[in-house]
C-alpha cells in the first residue's frame, strides 16, 4: 500500500492545469477527491509520474442555477450536493444517490466530477447522469467541448475524454416539475460498490407515463442506459405488465461479471429487482 514516486502539482487555474497536462502527456493524471485514484496508486495499479491536483481551482467549484438547469463544477463534493437545497428541490435524485456513496467522511472529499469522469462502472453518479441526460464540459488545449453523458462511457475506465482534457462542469437539465425519480442500490455494506443499482426518472401525465429514463450501475463495464426499459414504460399507467416489460428490457442489457458480490444470475436478478423498486418508488413520488 505504498505508491510509487510521483511529482505533485497544484495549479491555481484551469489554464495552468491544462498546460501541465499538455506538458506531461500520459505521464500525468488529474486528481479530484482522490478516492478512486489514490487507492489505485497505493496498490501500484496506477503509477502516474505527475499528479495534477485540482483542488485549488476555484472555477471548478460550485452549483449554479441557470434556470433551465444546473451547472455543477467538477470539484463540487458529494456533501455539497447533499447540502444544496436548490438542487434537491429541483432534482432530488442527486441527493438520494450521493447519500448512497461511501460514508460521510468520503463524501466530504469525493467529487461529482471525479465520480463521473473516472469511468469506473462501480461509481454511482454516471447512471444518474445517464438518466438525467446530463452534458459534460471538457476543457483541453483546443478549448472546451460538450459531451453527452449518454455517449461518454466506452468501457471500464475508458471514456470520450481525450488525453490532456479536464472534465470541468456537469450540466444537468431540470426534470419537469412533478417528475418522480429514485435511485435504488443494493450493496453489502457502507462503502461498497453496488451489487446492482438502478436510477429511474419519469413523468406522469393524465395517469399515463409521459417520459421515463432508466439506467443501471455496476452490471456492465460501464453504467448502462436502458433506453428500451424507459420506452416500455412510456404510455403505460405503470401497471405490472409495463413494469415487467421494463424490468425485462433492463435486465436484458445487464452483463455483470461474477465477483465476490455474487454470481452472474444473482446480480442480473438483483438488477431487475432494483429497476422494479426504482420504478415503483419514482411512480409514487411523481405527481
Amino acid at each position, binding site marked *: *500500500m*505504498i505508491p*510509487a*514516486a510521483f511529482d505533485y502539482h497544484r495549479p491555481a487555474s484551469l489554464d495552468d492545469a491544462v498546460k501541465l497536462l499538455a506538458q506531461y502527456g500520459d505521464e500525468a493524471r488529474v486528481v479530484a477527491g482522490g478516492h478512486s485514484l489514490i487507492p489505485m496508486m497505493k496498490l*501500484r495499479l496506477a503509477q502516474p509520474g505527475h499528479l495534477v491536483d485540482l483542488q485549488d481551482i476555484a472555477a471548478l467549484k460550485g452549483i449554479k442555477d441557470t434556470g433551465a438547469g444546473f451547472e455543477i463544477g467538477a470539484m463540487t463534493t458529494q456533501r455539497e450536493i447533499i447540502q444544496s437545497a436548490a438542487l434537491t428541490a429541483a432534482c432530488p435524485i442527486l441527493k438520494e444517490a450521493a447519500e448512497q456513496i461511501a*460514508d460521510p467522511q468520503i463524501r466530504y472529499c469525493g467529487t461529482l466530477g471525479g465520480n463521473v469522469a473516472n469511468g469506473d462502472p462501480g461509481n454511482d453518479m454516471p447512471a444518474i447522469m445517464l438518466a438525467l441526460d446530463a452534458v459534460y464540459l471538457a476543457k483541453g488545449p483546443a478549448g472546451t467541448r460538450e459531451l453527452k453523458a449518454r455517449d461518454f462511457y466506452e468501457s471500464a475506465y475508458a471514456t470520450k475524454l481525450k488525453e490532456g482534457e479536464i472534465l470541468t462542469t456537469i450540466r444537468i437539465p431540470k426534470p419537469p416539475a412533478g417528475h418522480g425519480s429514485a435511485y435504488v442500490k*443494493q450493496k*453489502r*455494506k*457502507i*462503502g*461498497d*460498490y453496488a*451489487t446492482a443499482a438502478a436510477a429511474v426518472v419519469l413523468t406522469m401525465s393524465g395517469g399515463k407515463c409521459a417520459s421515463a429514463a432508466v439506467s443501471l450501475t455496476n452490471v456492465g463495464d460501464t453504467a448502462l442506459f436502458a433506453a428500451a426499459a424507459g420506452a416500455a414504460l412510456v404510455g403505460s399507467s405503470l401497471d405490472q405488465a409495463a413494469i415487467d416489460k421494463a424490468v425485462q428490457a433492463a435486465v436484458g442489457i445487464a452483463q455483470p461479471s461474477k465477483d*465476490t*458480490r*455474487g*454470481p452472474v444470475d*444473482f*446480480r442480473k*436478478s*438483483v438488477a431487475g*429487482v432494483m429497476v422494479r423498486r426504482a420504478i415503483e418508488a419514482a411512480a409514487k413520488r411523481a405527481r
Partner: protein
Amino acid sequence: MSAADGTSVQERTDKLEGLGCKRKRVEDARFTQGKGKYVDDMKLPGMVFGDFVRSPYGHARIKKIDKSKALALPGVKAVLTADDLKPLNLHYMPTLAGDVQAVLAVDKVLFQGQEVAFVVATDRYIAADAVELIEVEYEDLPCVIDPLKAMDKDAPVLRHDLEGKTEGAHGARRHHNHIFTWEVGDAAATDKALGSAEVVAKEFLSYQRVHPCPLETCGCVASMDKINSHLTVWGTFQAPHAVRTVASLISGIPEHKIRIVSPDIGGGFGNKVGVYPGYICSIVASIVLGVPVKWIEDRIENLTATAFARDYHMTGEIAATKDGRITALKCHVVADHGAFDACADPTKFPAGFFNICTGSYDIPTAFLSVDGVYTNKAPGGVAYRCSFRVTEASYFIERMIDVLARKLNMDPAEVRRKNFIRKEQFPYKSALGWEYDSGDYDTAFDKALAAVDYKGLRAEQKKNREDFAAGKTRSLMGIGIAFFTEIVGAGPVKNCDILGLGMFDSCEIRIHPTGSAIARLGTISQGQGHATTFAQILATEIGLPASMITVEEGDTDTAPYGLGTYGSRSTPVAGAATAMAGRKIRAKAQMIAAYLLEVHDSDLEWDVDRFQVKGAPDRFKTMQEIAFAAYNKAIPGIEPGLEAVSYYDPPNMTYPFGAYICVADIDVDTGVTAIRRFYALDDCGTRINPMIIEGQVHGGLTEALAIAMGQEIAYDENGNVSGGSLLDFFLPTAVETPAWETDFTVTPSPHHPIGAKGVGESPNVGGVSAFSNAVCDAFAHLGLTHTQMPHDHWRVWKTAQKLGLVE
C-alpha cells in the same frame, strides 16, 4: 452500619470502585484522544524499514531470485532470501503446533502472499520500490485448495520438506498432505447408539475460513544493541513472554538479554498470538545491520498472510429418541490448516478444545475425530475471539440441535430444554472428557425466552409464513436460538502448555508507602481493559481504591512470566493470580495491623478497606495506614515492605454460558437479511465491571454478525485469494450493526478465587450459530435443514432459488 470514622460500609465500598463497579475505562483517556502508543508510533534513531516480496502463486517452484536491481537502488540496505537464512538455520521456524514454517520460501511457494524475500531500506517508500525490483522466476504447480480432496491419492505433494516423515507432532501421518488425526470419545459405543437410535439426523456443516482482522495490523521494531548484545523487540504480541522464550531458543541469545515489549495493541482476536516471518526477518536484519528495523504489515498482507481462523468442515450425526432425548453424537472434522500447521493451540490439543462440542447438553455417548490437512493456503487456524476451536464446536452443536429439531418436528427451544445438563449435575463430566465447573442453564434459558416473548415470536412467524404463502409479503421471518457453553481459561499446567510452557499466569503487586500500588501481570491487554478491571479485582481484595492502582503489562523486563492474553484466559488465570497476590498482601497487612493495634492476628476482621478489632469496630487500621507502617515501622518478625507475587495454576477451566436469540427478516428477492432483534444473555460468573462486559458483548456480537453474514477468505482453484481487502472482507460498520440487547445471570465458578469465568469471547462463540440458525429457520417450513455460511446476499438468494421462491 457506620464505622468509627463516620463513613458507611457502602460509602467506603463505592470509593474503592471494586468488583461490580461500572468503572470507566482508564485506558480510554489516551485512546479517545489518539494518544495511544502503538508499535508503528515507535521511532528510533537510525531505524530502517522492512518489506516483503510475496508470492503471486498458490503453489510454484522458485527457479531463480535476482536481487541485483534492488540492491543497486540507493537506500536499500539488504535483501534476505531463504539462502541467506539457511546458514543461520533460520529458514524454517517452529510453529506453535509442532510443525515448522518457512520464514522465507524455501525452493517452493505454498500459498499466495507467502514471504519470498525481505527487503530492508532507509525508508518505507524505497523498501516498497525495491520489492518491485526483485525478479523471481516461478514454475507454476497444481494447487490443493479443497481440503476434502487434500488426501486424495493423486493430490499434489505440498510439503517436500516433510517427505518420508510418517510421524507428525500428533501421531502417525498417513498421507503426504495429512497433518494429524485426533480422536476423542468412544467410537464403538457411539456407533452402537447411532445404529439403534429411533431418530438420527445427519448434516455436513462447513465453517468457512475467516480472519480476525484486528484494526491494527501486525508489526514490530527489532533493535539489536551490539555493544551489550541485548535484543529488544517491540511488537504486536499477545504473549510477550512466550515470544521471548521462543526467540531465545531459536536465536541462541540468552533469555536475559532479550526484552520483548508489547505496547498498546489495536485488537488481537488471536491474530497476534503466533510468530510471523516478519518478526524473524526484522530481528535477523537488525542483528546483521546493527540498527533498529521496523516492519509493519498493510491490510492486504494481514488478511492474506497472517493467521486465519476456522476453515472446519464438519460432518455431524446426532441420535435421539422420538421424543427428543439425545442419545449419541458423532462428529468428523476435516480441518484445513493451510500450508504449515501454525495453529495456536495448547500442545496436547491439535484441534484445540473442539471436544467441548457436546455443548450444553447431557449427551451420554460421543465420538469425535479430526483430520488436519495441508492445502495451498495461508497458515494459521487461530482462536478468533474464542478459546481454541470452541467457536467451531459451539456452531457445530447448536446447528446440529436445530437439524435434529427439524427431523423430530419439534421446536428447537424444546429440544434444547429437554437435553440441558441440569443444575444439580455440576460439576458435570462430559462424554468427551471435560469437567464443567458450574451452570444453571434452565434459569438462563427461561429468562431469555421470556425476555423476547418466544411464544409470541413463533406466533408472529406462523402468520408471516401464511402471508408469504398468500403472496402478501416477500419477506420471511427467522428465529435463531443458541445456548452455548464455552470452555476458557487455559489452563491447568497438568494438561495445558504451549511449546512446553505451562499455561499458568501471574501477578506481582507492590504497595507504595502512601497507599497506592502497581500491579504487573503476565497478560497483555489488546483492548480488553485490563488496566481497569484488574485494578478493580485488587481494590476489593486489598481495600485500596482502584484509582490508586496502576496495572502494567507487556514488558518482559518488568512483568512476571505469563502466557499472555487470548482464549478468554486473562480473567480466569491472571485475574485469579491477581486475587491470590492480593490475598498475600492482605495476610501480611493483617499481621502489621495486629502489631499496630496491639492485638492478636486472629482478633482482627477485614472490613472493606481496613482491619478492625472484632467486636470493637472503632479500633481499626485502614489499608493505607498499614501500607505506611510497612515502610516506616520496625515490626518484630515482619520484613519491611508490602509486596506479593502469585503464580496461579488453575485447577480447572471455567465454563461461561449464555442464551442468545436472533430475529431476522429475509428479503427473498435480494437475499438481504435484516437483523430485527438480537438478545444476548451471558453468564460469566462474577461480574467484575458490567460496563466492560457489555462492551465486550457488543464487540463480539458484531464479529459474530460479520462471520455469519459475510466474512470469508476464499480461494479459487488456482490458489488466488479473494476477500483480502476491506472492500470484500466484511467488517461491519455502525450502519450494518443492529442494536444489541444484553442481559445476564450469575453462576460463579466454584474454583476461581472470585468466581469469575471470562466473557471476552462468549459473544463470538455463541453469536455465530444464533445468526445462522435464524437464517436457516426462516426457510425451515419449506424443508431447509441447513445452508452454509456466510449468509451473504447471494448465498441466501441461492437458497431461496433452490426452494423455488425466486426464478
